[in-house]
């Protein structure tokens, strides 16, 4: 992936709005050709502003943006090799589906004779063949979205920008559209940049994800890296669930980190880096196991009692706490009906492999 040339280079981009709102602070990202890239963060974090900078609706206050090797920071939206699928779909209400899809070709002076066949092809691509004569008010939300996709893709952009494309769809349709978008991207081979606040959406679709919070870029990584090796507390907490223990660093080096956590005692964690200062230790709920007997030296194990059990079908979330008041959340997979019937109770050992502990110094 890194060997391919970047189609988008975002270089130290900052954006502030009148009134002193800093939407983005010194963000640099490189996106490769053909990548499915997600901008993930809570609402108001600046991810949509970044997308609008790529589309040309906002200009960066500082820094520049290169698309396809050219500086696009101050180029008008209609002169950029990118197209966008808007959150509201923005399908033109006074045009038919075919006219909507043809619009981009018409205004950019495409040869009139070739337009109908290109429109037909684009509608087929999004599985709306035969819908050309419909009016937008005769379409469902999912169909409008397909029109918006066809309208953008028919222009054969170098990059397709998608602003929260699935947020208005109901849960079932959203899942189907996730697969559909990945299929589409594989078919057309265009770089997709998608903005979302839904971590599941980002994890299941994207090749790489950039996590943004308060205008700061926190981490850019593959979904697996982001989930298993988050580099700071916000990312660790934002993606999935996390047990976090704040500790005091009492010795670091030689591949081991010695941490004293109030209420848990001293923990020895394998760690390649030599760290100074206090650290947070984080463990995913599904990496923790429950034992009725002490599990042995392979595990870090702590005695705790079950406070609450929440059965959720495929898994059960078990909430425990030890006598010092340290809380654990453990996720137990219900691999059989017996597992589902025999829910955890009483006093148990919470245990995990030292290698599954994440060290957060940031």
């Amino acid at each position, binding site marked *: 992936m890194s060997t391919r040339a970047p189609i988008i280079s975002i270089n130290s981009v900052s954006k502030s709005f009148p009134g002193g709102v800093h939407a983005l602070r010194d963000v640099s990202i490189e996106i490769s050709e053909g990548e499915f890239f997600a901008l993930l963060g809570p609402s108001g974090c600046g991810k949509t502003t970044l997308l609008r900078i790529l589309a040309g609706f906002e200009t960066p206050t500082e820094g520049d943006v290169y698309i396809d090797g050219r500086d696009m920071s101050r180029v008008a939206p209609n002169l950029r090799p*990118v197209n966008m699928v808007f959150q*509201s779909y923005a399908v033109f209400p006074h045009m038919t589906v075919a006219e909507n899809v043809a*619009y981009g070709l018409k*205004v950019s002076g495409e040869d009139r004779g070739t337009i109908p066949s290109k429109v037909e092809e684009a509608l087929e691509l999004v599985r709306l063949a035969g819908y050309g004569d419909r009016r937008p008010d005769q379409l469902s939300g999912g169909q409008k979205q397909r029109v918006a996709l066809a309208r953008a893709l028919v222009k054969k952009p170098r990059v397709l920008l998608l602003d929260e494309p699935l947020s208005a769809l109901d849960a079932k349709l959203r899942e189907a559209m996730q697969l559909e978008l990945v299929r589409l991207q594989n078919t057309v081979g265009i770089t997709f940049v998608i903005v979302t606040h839904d971590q599941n959406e980002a994890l299941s679709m994207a090749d790489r994800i950039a996590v943004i919070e308060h205008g700061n870029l926190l981490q850019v990584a593959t979904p697996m890296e982001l989930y298993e090796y988050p580099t700071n507390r916000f990312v660790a907490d934002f993606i999935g669930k996390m047990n976090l223990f704040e500790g005091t660093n009492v010795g670091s080096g030689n591949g081991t980190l010695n941490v004293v956590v109030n209420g848990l005692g001293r923990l020895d964690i394998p760690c390649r880096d030599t760290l100074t200062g206090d650290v947070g230790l984080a463990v995913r709920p599904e990496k923790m196991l429950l034992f009725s007997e002490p599990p042995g030296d392979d595990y870090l194990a702590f005695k705790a009692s079950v406070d609450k059990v929440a059965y959720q079908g495929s898994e059960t979330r078990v909430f425990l706490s030890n006598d010092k008041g340290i809380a654990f959340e453990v996720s137990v997979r219900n691999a059989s009906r017996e597992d589902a019937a025999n829910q955890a109770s009483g006093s148990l050992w919470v245990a995990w492999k030292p290698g599954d502990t994440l060290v957060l110094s940031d």
Partner: protein
Amino acid sequence: MIGRRRKEPPGPLEYGRRLWLRASLWATFLFLYAPIVILVVFSFNNSRRNIVWRGFTFKYYEKAWNNDSLIEAFTNSLTIALISTVVSVILGMMTAVMLWRFRFPGKAPYEGTMALPIIIPEICMGVAMMAFFSRIGWPTNLPWPINLGAITIAHISFSFPFVAMVVRARLARFNPELEEAARDLGASQWQSFRDVLLPYMRPGLVAGGLLAFTLSLDDFVITFFTAGPETVTFPVKVYSMIRFSVTPEVNAASTVLILITLVLTTVALWLQNRSQSRQ
């Protein structure tokens, strides 16, 4: 069962079942529409005096049609209404788009004063217009239709705020992403205005235009003060005819005016309803 239900007291929103409300409703209808009905009926009255019914005739429509000065006034009215409507629609649309899209110093006061011609008493507006045109020495005795300039300008000044208000109200519901989508697909600013914003505004423009047209056609007070002896409009002409005697000819001319106004207002309302149900 039905007999019993009748005895139930009227519910909180069943105004139609309260006697005093029904009475006031019928009184309103009577005083509002009876004079108009009488006016229309007596336009067919075969009598020079407008008091006793003497049989049915189209004579006075014919007479009104052959009255050259009445037809001239009618032509003047239509010409003024047409020009004032076209200019009001363009001006009103530009005002609405400006107020909707841009932020500029003095926007709030401007938005407030823009609607002033709607609020100001017509008589004051008429006197002000007369004073203004005589103060700047607006030339009279010009050839037709340039001699209608003063009236047309006066009409535009009180018509275009109506267009602006109708269009502005429609723009408030416009999704700005539609325009951005057009820009994103390669349209220039002008193209996105022409292809997206203008079609969206169209029902508002038509409704506002019809409003401006009927306002101009009907206007008496302001026109009376700005009109010269050469530039008599239809309402002003009717007024001068009535000063001599109320003949069925006046009734006939008024009926035609009512008909035109009614048709145009209906079309305007229908267009607005249609655009609302479409959104």
